[in-house]
């Protein structure tokens, strides 16, 4: 018992005397917000991303490694709108870090800068995994990225005022490059407008909205509910009368149902990166949209 108390004390003292680093520590919940924080903060920020593009961000665990990162974070960048409701509250609660609690400057929600689509008028879990504050899968509309970038630039300057000029300059530079990129993407994507598609989950809604894709059906009968054989059968006959050009799915999705449907309705199933890191081409935010458009355009040719 005495040994244990001694060990306890040694570990405690050792841990207290560790040095702290100078860069602003950012914990981003998704690779997209991590990539944005790097775009805006450059070498003034030290970014840790809690998830990968191959994870389903609805179902992430409050892993010890993440609690440790939340402990030392100066800024938590989350999507908000309850996307991370199953794990982020635990991280923040266990972190012992008052600076990143909701309501504090160190807690940033991308959704706070956006107008969300699909805010449900009625809430009932019989409708599946619906998000009460609206669809939180906002990153596939580059206009959303831009709005979040503005808000995040302001927030970085607020919590790290000594570097405010740096963030402002970098923010403006990103904004200009992003503006140009949006113009190029929208010009390039013009032929996609009105393309009838089947989506996998409601996390592709913002992409459809941005590009003007027509969502004919969804492989999930209800958000978060996997399709049954009967539902897929009905879908095949529906798509017989209303043909689609593409079936969209994300890198993290199980491709089984989409491939099955693809064979029967003769429309290609396109695997999109969905998040930064979701494909070889999606190395950063620019790459995410470049690659998404390239894959879509190649598939409709």
């Amino acid at each position, binding site marked *: 018992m005495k040994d244990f108390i001694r060990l306890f004390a040694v570990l405690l003292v050792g841990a207290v005397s560790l040095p702290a680093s100078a860069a602003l520590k950012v914990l981003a919940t998704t690779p997209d917000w991590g990539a944005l924080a790097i775009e805006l903060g450059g070498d003034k920020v030290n970014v840790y991303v809690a998830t990968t593009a191959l994870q389903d961000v609805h179902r992430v665990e409050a892993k010890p490694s993440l609690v440790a990162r939340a402990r030392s974070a100066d800024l938590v960048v989350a999507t908000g709108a309850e996307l991370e409701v199953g794990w982020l509250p635990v991280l923040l609660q266990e972190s012992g870090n008052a600076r990143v609690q909701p309501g504090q400057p160190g807690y940033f929600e991308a959704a706070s800068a956006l107008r969300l689509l699909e805010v449900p008028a009625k809430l009932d879990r019989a409708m599946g995994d619906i998000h009460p504050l609206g669809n939180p899968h906002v990153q596939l509309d580059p206009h959303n990225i831009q709005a979040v970038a503005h808000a995040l630039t302001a927030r970085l300057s607020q919590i790290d005022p000594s570097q*405010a000029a740096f963030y402002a300059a970098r923010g403006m530079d990103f904004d200009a490059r992003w503006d140009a990129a949006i113009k190029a993407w929208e010009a390039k994507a013009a032929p996609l407008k009105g393309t009838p598609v089947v989506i996998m989950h409601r996390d592709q809604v913002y992409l459809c909205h941005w590009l003007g894709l027509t969502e004919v059906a969804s492989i999930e009968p209800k958000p978060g509910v996997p399709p049954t054989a009967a539902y897929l059968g009905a879908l095949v006959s529906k798509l017989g009368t209303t043909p689609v050009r593409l079936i969209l799915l994300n890198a993290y999705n*199980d491709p089984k149902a989409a491939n099955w449907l693809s064979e029967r309705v003769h429309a290609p199933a396109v695997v999109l990166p969905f998040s930064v890191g979701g494909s070889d081409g999606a190395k950063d935010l620019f790459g995410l949209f470049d690659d998404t458009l390239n894959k879509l355009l190649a598939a409709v040719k």
Partner: protein
Amino acid sequence: MMVFRPVAALMALATLPAMASGADDVAALRAELQALKSDYDARVDALEARIRQLEASAQASADAAEALATAPPAAPAPAPGGDVGDKASAFNPAISLILGGNFTGTSRDPAGWHIAGFPPAGDEAGPGGRSFNLGESELTFAASIDPYFAGTLTAAINGDNEIEVEEAFFRTTALRDGFSVKGGRFFSGFGYLNEVHAHAWDFVDQPLVYQAMFGGQHKQNGVQVKWLAPTDLFLEFGAETGNGDNFPGTRLESNGFNGATLFVHVGGDIGDYTSWRGGVSWLTQSSEARSGGIDDADGQPLFDAFSGDSDTWVVDGVLKWAPSPRRQLKVQGEYMHRRESGSIFDAGGSLLADDYRNTRAGWYLQSVYQFAPRWRVGARYDSLDGGTPAYAFAPPNLLDASPERISLMLDWNPSEFSRLRAQYDWDDARDDGETDHALRLQYIYGIGAHGAHKY
């Protein structure tokens, strides 16, 4: 009908000119329509141009404001549709409710179930009654209290119509540097499984070692201080004290507190798919006339009450491997070791020995594999060692108990909020030469606020 009449009249009127006039009139009408359309197109274009202009200037001023970066950002806009305005209910805590129950079949009468070599630790142990059983309905209220504290109440209503306060605690939300304080009644932070609520267990019941050593989950009525080290490796230290009200302690007739708990947890990731956590904990408690004893090898009570000290060590570890969002392997195990020393008494309260000591131990190892998005299968092995009581006048026919149990489970999870489970136990907890076979079918449903689960 009143409504339809004018509409019908209008429709009739609209068709009149077309019927009455010739092709020239149609052409004229077309030209007129075309003119109207192009006029509108021009107007729409002008409006769109103005909107773009306005957006650009708003953008420019926003950029300018950011460039200055002197003003703090505006408060986050209220969520669309989330008009909380002046509703009195807006501050209501988040409420979640767990409904649970099971159907149990056992080969031996569950009324005689006990863990050989261990004093009874509480009534939450054992396979439960036969046939249908209403489980605990768990009601949780949680909310921030003010900018400094948050509060949580979890009440369990059991099938016998009793309400039990499982947890009722405040915790700090404004402390910095990794500190947090919790007070009230809460699940003690030692080990791994102790803090996990019943609805999140991977099996119907707890491992035997928890049932034997703590009568289920160990609740602390007291305070807890935790400190998380500022390291990339998860390194957490915790200390608790309380009134000792829960097994193996008893409330003492004195001021101050009874017992202390210290724990260290370490955790991290191995690559992208694997995470782990391990820990060492130490608990000490005292008890005065704690009722419940153990039997000798002939089934006769050796003693009926105990006063003295209990020191418990717990080593825990868990490893999770999640190679895809639809598959996960979880392996966890805990080892507990308890030394008790003090005095023992008979049923009448007379002292039998004042140099009693015993060392008991136990462990479990379990693994759960999610092999499909909605399906999980698991296996668990429990092993206990009842130790050998030692005291000056100890009889020769002491029981050398080593209870064991093997559990297999399969569960189906239609959504995050529902779970149906089947569990089979090969149960040798009684260690009397006859094994019990138990089959339990269980449901767990969650309604209300979306809870966030611990690791």
